[in-house]
């Protein structure tokens, strides 16, 4: 499995796929590594696509995760424009769309996720965009330029992280923005009511119109550059561009077709193993089965990196589960949100700091256990929280909200 005649094929050249490849090399794997990417470029960073890539005229080089020369040096054979049509687990081979086939001794699935489309926008053509790839972001950037030129607003469907980040970027460019959210508040699945409200105020203060409980009947293209959003009550608004950010679905079709167990994602254990020997998976395409049997789906850079690393180790026969607290961040305007842990099921929420000061954290407890911390412009709170949650050390709710109490002390006390 690890000798020079072995061949590990990685499907997907995003953050998780690249991490798996580099981990194999840093763990002295001597066989061939083939990294298959469907896009025309080398692995690149996705986080800037909703932010600086839209506003700052970055160089494509600055988006790239590695220089081609680095991949060459590490003997990672990158195939671009290589999309896979099937996996045959019996013959251990992968079939590409162009007819080429590759046999593998180990396979990493890092196929990512696909943005959900809005069924009501079926006929709106290029004036409706979702955001996942560099090409998507380029199309949005073009649409935003058209909004500036024609003084048309941007309409964002979905008040999640992608939508809010794009909204903030558009405001930076001086574009009028309306956010349409079907739920009664922003980021309902991830944030507590307090923080949702705080984000709504932030965006409203920067001039964005927010509409909650929005029910869209149809989005259509009325001319080459203008779309119209019609609500179920019959009223309409115009837009120069509509960006839809209503979540993603895991790309698990290839795995399902190959008989690998999936459930809204490729099911993996803590080490990235799938239901089929010699096949591991990492990143947005996965769903993790936890020890208590519940399923956990994470969509984050950190998860992609850590699962990529675990998956590579698993192929080399080494158990290397990721044990740290999940974490995530979102930049909107000059506000940096960092989330440590998972707040689902939390029953107590306490505030540390002052929400008006734009630097504070919210601590989430389940019974007496600290399960998550959301920090705004409070990097140190976040770093301490990751450590505490990862090591299952809990302050009391009283300590968490007392800014005079040094939470970092708890680490050494129980180290």
């Amino acid at each position: 499995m690890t000798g020079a005649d072995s061949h590990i094929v990685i499907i997907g050249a995003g953050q998780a796929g690249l991490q798996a490849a580099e981990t194999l090399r840093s763990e002295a794997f001597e066989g061939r590594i083939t990294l298959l990417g469907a896009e025309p470029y080398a692995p690149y960073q996705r986080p800037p696509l909703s932010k600086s890539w839209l506003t700052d005229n970055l160089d494509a080089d600055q988006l790239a995760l590695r220089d081609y020369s680095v991949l060459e040096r590490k003997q990672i054979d990158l195939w671009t424009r290589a999309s896979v049509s099937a996996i045959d687990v019996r013959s251990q081979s992968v079939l590409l769309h162009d007819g080429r086939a590759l046999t593998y001794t180990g396979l990493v699935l890092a196929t990512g996720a696909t943005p959900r489309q809005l069924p009501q926008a079926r006929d709106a053509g290029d004036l409706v965009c979702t955001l996942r790839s560099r090409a998507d972001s380029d199309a949005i950037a073009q649409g935003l330029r058209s909004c500036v030129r024609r003084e048309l607003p941007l309409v964002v469907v979905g008040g999640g992280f992608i939508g809010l980040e794009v909204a903030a970027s558009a405001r930076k460019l001086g574009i009028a923005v309306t956010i349409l959210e079907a739920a009664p508040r922003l980021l309902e699945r991830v944030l507590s009511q307090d923080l949702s409200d705080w984000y709504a105020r932030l965006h409203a203060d920067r001039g964005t119109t927010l509409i909650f409980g929005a029910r869209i009947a149809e989005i259509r293209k009325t001319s080459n550059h203008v779309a119209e959003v019609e609500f179920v009550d019959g009223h309409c608004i115009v837009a120069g561009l509509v960006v839809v950010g209503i979540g993603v679905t895991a790309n698990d079709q290839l795995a399902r077709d190959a008989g690998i167990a999936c459930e809204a994602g490729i099911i993996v254990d803590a080490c990235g193993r799938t239901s089929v020997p010699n096949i591991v998976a990492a990143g947005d395409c996965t769903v993790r089965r936890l020890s208590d049997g519940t399923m956990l789906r994470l969509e984050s850079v950190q998860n992609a990196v850590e699962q990529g690393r675990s998956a590579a180790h698993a192929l080399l026969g080494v158990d290397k589960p990721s044990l740290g607290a999940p974490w995530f961040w979102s930049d909107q305007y000059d506000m940096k949100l960092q989330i440590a842990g998972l707040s689902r099921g939390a029953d107590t929420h306490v505030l540390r700091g002052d929400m008006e000061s734009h630097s504070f954290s919210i601590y989430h407890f389940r019974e007496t256990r600290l399960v998550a911390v959301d920090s705004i412009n409070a990097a140190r709170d976040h770093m301490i929280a990751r450590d505490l949650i990862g090591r299952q050390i809990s302050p009391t709710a009283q300590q968490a909200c007392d800014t005079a109490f040094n939470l970092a002390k708890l680490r050494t006390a129980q180290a």
Partner: protein
Amino acid sequence: MVQIVIVQPSGASFELEVPEGWSLMQAAVKNGIDGIVAECGGSCVCATCHVYVQPERLAELPPPGDDELELLDEVKAERRPSSRLSCQIKSAAELDGLIVTIPERQT
């Protein structure tokens, strides 16, 4: 093009070319330099691109902002007066020839 000398904990060193407008972290990551993890890609949220700047030239860098200072308190290797996050060091002509050392660990 600004050249910055990167020294690994092992003592091995090499010259890294950092294009104008780039951060040291960006150039290091793109060139696959071991020891610069940069999980957050330069958002100043993860403290995994920690470096030690040669002390005598530390004053030539713009001072760290509040968020960088907070994160520097949380780096995994030893925190020194010369500690900086390389994502916050922007290439500038006057930094040519600067020597930075990578700490023993980032995570």
